[in-house]
């Protein structure tokens, strides 16, 4: 941290002493990088300068003096950060090649001209893939911080940078939040390159674009905007790039932070971008014309524009056979509605519209509520609160403990509350059904919104019955109607009645999805040819023809 501050001070110092610039321009300058800085000629002064930048005691900053084995009078300094670099690479390409060569010397003596010397070292001594020569110390520092190694050669005023990235990271594992029974089991990791590779492997088209930029003055997080040239609406891409470029922050450690900076209405409870840790899902989205955002150090990639139906789709929808996948998807909408309204509906009926229930049920509810000291609404709020607590605590626990805790907590708490006469058994059922329903919403962020909105609906329902519930729902739908994601209306797919049963409320067979969805305004709407399953039609025609012939023969 201190390093960067120093760098900044240095950079500013170079630009001159006009310290009275406005705050605004100062802030813009923060993102725009640092000025240039010459590399000193002598190794000692290089070392001193680096030390002054990084501080004396940074144990992971390694500076190793080397003398070239071909000509020991040439002194060099190998500079890298331990942990960001791969030790084997450093040893093989850096130390061994420079100090322990087995080939005969190329030219002896080495040229005195620094430029030639550097070229010679690059071409003959450093067997690394990505090598470059740089004469700006700030740039060297920047590169070293991303995992490259630098070799300074005395008197050349240049540094040779070579690729030695190799930090510790998680390997590609199974997705933990979007589990499926069928389908690929890879998930994004925290490493940008791994993630982009995972995407490339699935979309082997040269039109796939990874437009990179950096966000965060201090974190310098790599952010990549992913899209397919020729499909994705360029306006959307520009909009996303513009919004990302406008981020001026210190640290952007996760895609969640980026999301909040660039979404249309941050105050809305509904998410306006989907996030996913599944490369397959990500690629499906990108190929439909969505713009993707992959953030280094975040295993969750973003996709936009999003809309309400996208949050009710699960990755599995396209891996299971369509009759089941479609039905399950419709079920999820029902679950969403249930999770949102069921407790409110119950409270409205139980406190305002008792005549609506069958008599026996009404009497049973009344009987079960006899010993409960609280009004129905308080009872409902208490139980809902308890459910949220259980859920929140279960999330924080390690996996096996969390699951057990969820079940046990719910069971014990419910049972104890009923036998203590604090809540009625029916309320426990209502809350349990609500909880189950909210779990079946595939996207956590929407399930959060539903959980949050349940409470105002409960209050409205207990206040003015079903009218309150209706009013609340109308308000929510109005809000959703006004909501946009990257300027695309949030409810759009729901309003196109033609596509409603293709990929919104239900899923049609894969081969029927001839066109891409229209909401991201893809440049090329045709996704499939019309010749799919032609063989089935041919067979049918043949059979019919044969039948006809048979009939004729008969």
């Amino acid at each position, binding site marked *: 941290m201190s390093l960067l501050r120093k760098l900044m001070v240095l950079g500013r110092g170079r630009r001159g002493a006009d310290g009275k610039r406005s705050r605004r321009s100062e802030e813009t300058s923060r993102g725009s990088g640092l000025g240039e800085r010459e590399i000193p000629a002598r190794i000692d002064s290089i070392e001193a300068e680096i030390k002054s930048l990084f501080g004396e005691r940074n144990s992971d900053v390694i500076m190793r003096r080397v003398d070239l084995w071909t000509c020991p009078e040439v002194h060099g300094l190998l500079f890298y950060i331990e942990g960001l670099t791969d030790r084997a690479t450093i040893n093989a390409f850096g130390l061994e090649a420079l100090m322990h060569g087995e080939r005969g010397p190329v030219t002896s003596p080495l040229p005195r001209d620094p430029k030639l010397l550097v070229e010679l070292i690059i071409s003959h001594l450093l067997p690394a893939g990505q090598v470059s020569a740089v004469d700006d110390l700030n740039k060297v520092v920047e590169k070293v911080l991303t995992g490259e190694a630098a070799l300074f050669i005395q008197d050349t005023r240049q540094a040779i940078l070579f690729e030695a990235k190799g930090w510790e990271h998680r390997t590609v594992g199974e997705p933990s939040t979007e589990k499926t029974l069928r389908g690929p089991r890879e998930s994004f990791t925290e490493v940008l390159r791994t993630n982009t590779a995972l995407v490339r492997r699935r979309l082997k088209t040269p039109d796939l674009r990874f437009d990179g930029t950096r966000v965060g003055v201090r974190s310098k997080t790599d952010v990549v905007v992913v899209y397919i040239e020729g499909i994705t609406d360029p306006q959307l891409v520009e909009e996303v790039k513009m919004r990302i470029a406008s981020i001026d922050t210190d640290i952007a450690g996760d895609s969640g932070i980026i999301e909040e900076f660039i979404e249309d*209405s*941050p*105050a809305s409870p509904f998410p306006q971008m989907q996030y996913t840790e599944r490369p397959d899902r990500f690629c499906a989205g990108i190929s439909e014309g969505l713009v993707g955002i992959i953030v280094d150090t975040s295993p969750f990639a973003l996709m936009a524009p999003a809309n309400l139906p996208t949050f009710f789709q699960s990755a599995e929808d396209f891996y299971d056979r369509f009759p089941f996948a479609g039905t399950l998807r419709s079920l999820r909408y029902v679950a969403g509605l249930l999770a949102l309204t069921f407790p409110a509906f119950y*409270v409205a009926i*139980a*406190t*305002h519209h*008792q*005549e*609506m229930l069958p*008599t*026996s049920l*009404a*009497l*049973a*509810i*009344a*009987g*079960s*509520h*006899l010993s*409960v000291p609280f*009004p*129905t*609404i308080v009872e409902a709020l208490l139980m809902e609160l308890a459910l949220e607590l259980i859920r929140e605590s279960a999330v924080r626990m390690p996996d096996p403990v969390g699951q057990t805790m969820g079940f046990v907590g719910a069971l014990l708490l419910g049972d104890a509350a009923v036998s203590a006469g604090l809540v009625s058994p029916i309320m426990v059922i209502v809350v349990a059904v609500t909880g189950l329903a909210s779990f079946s919403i595939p996207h956590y962020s929407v399930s959060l919104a539903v959980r949050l909105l349940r409470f105002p609906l409960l209050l*409205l329902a*207990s*206040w*003015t*019955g079903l009218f309150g519930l209706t009013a609340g729902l109308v*308000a929510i739908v109005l*809000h959703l109607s*006004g909501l946009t994601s990257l300027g695309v209306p949030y409810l759009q797919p729901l309003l196109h009645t033609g596509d409603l049963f293709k990929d919104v409320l239900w899923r049609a067979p894969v081969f029927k999805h001839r066109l891409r969805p229209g909401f991201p305004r893809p440049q090329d709407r045709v996704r499939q040819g019309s010749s799919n399953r032609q063989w089935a039609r041919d067979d049918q025609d043949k059979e019919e023809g044969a039948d006809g012939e048979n009939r004729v023969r008969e």
Partner: protein
Amino acid sequence: MTRWLSLSCLGLVLVCLGLVVSGCGTAVDMEDVGFVVALGVDSEDDGKVRLWLEVAEPGMGVESLAKQETLLASTEGDTLYDAFIKLETRSSRNLTLGHVRTIVIGERLARAGLRQAVDALMRDATLRLKAWVLVTPDPVEEVLSLSIAGQPAGMFIGSLMQREAQRAGAPSSRIVDLVTHIEERGVQPLIARVGLARESESAGGGGGGAEGGAAQGSASGGDGSGTSMNLSDMFVLNGAAVFKGDKMVGWLDARQSAAAVIINSRIQGYEFIHKLSADGDESIGVNLMSAHAEVSIPRECLADAEKVEGCTVEVKVNGLWGMRELISDDQFMTEEGVVALNKSISVRLKRDTDDMLRVIQTELGSDVIGIGEVFRQRMAHSNWKKISGEWDTLFQSLNIKVIVNVAGRRRGQILRSLSEDKAI
């Protein structure tokens, strides 16, 4: 964004304001509701109205489902609502009429007129418009305090009526029908009769026609329960009360009311024993599976209001029946036999219908079968306006010709009855 934020804040403020103003909502918890499942009304000697409310006690647990506790509260007042207020002030719960399944009206009040009693009920927004209305010749209190197999009277009668809704056992008389028919000139209310089966007396009508054969009609007494039950503790849906406007004018017995119901509506079941011989040795158990009536009115009667008086109206009843029991030597295994059987049953039904017509046309003078409504539907509105005022007298003058034509369709699982002759 700021726009909707500020607006939602505004909404919140409004909501809070509303909460404060209205005194924090009007939610009523379930246990504070008194669920009235049945309502009884009758008039007292001094002209006051007596009201019974059967309030179901909320039950706890599974055992409550088997046995429903109820509380029968009763009081009298100047009007129905007056009595209701008195009961409400004595009740710890908020009485709601939202669960009333049955309304039992005493014969005395029914004869005095229901117009005023019905008013309070119809103004209530929660009342079930589909609640059954029945008239009883027995004391209302006795009817409502009877509980069968743990089921309170209101629920039990409700279930009985529900079962009979599409059949001819009792007219399907809902409160909404009563109210509609009180006002409509062309059709008068026909309300089911509920009585208590007494061991000593055979169940019969109090008024008009308690004639022979009434015993067959009490079909719905207590079937469905396998255990032996004291018949005296049974409800009997038997016959119907005939109204003229809001006033009851007399009874129809079971056979007559069934005939009226068949003309009134499409039915899907009517069981009776039909005697094949005069001495009563041979009989057939008949289930009229479906039947409906068509009324045809000559053109000239419809075109000219003057000609309605004495007009000949044809009522054609068609139906299908099934054989449920056959006590006879003749097994009717020939085409001719079946035709003869059809004819015999048709004749019986026609006799019932004629009997019913005689009672409602000459004795009671009330068009419960809705011939007037058919006139209204088919004639010009101006013509109907001329005659609607005096429809009751015109109805009496009508010459109603009944043609019954039923056909046998089902014989049951066996083709022949068991034979004494083992050599078969």
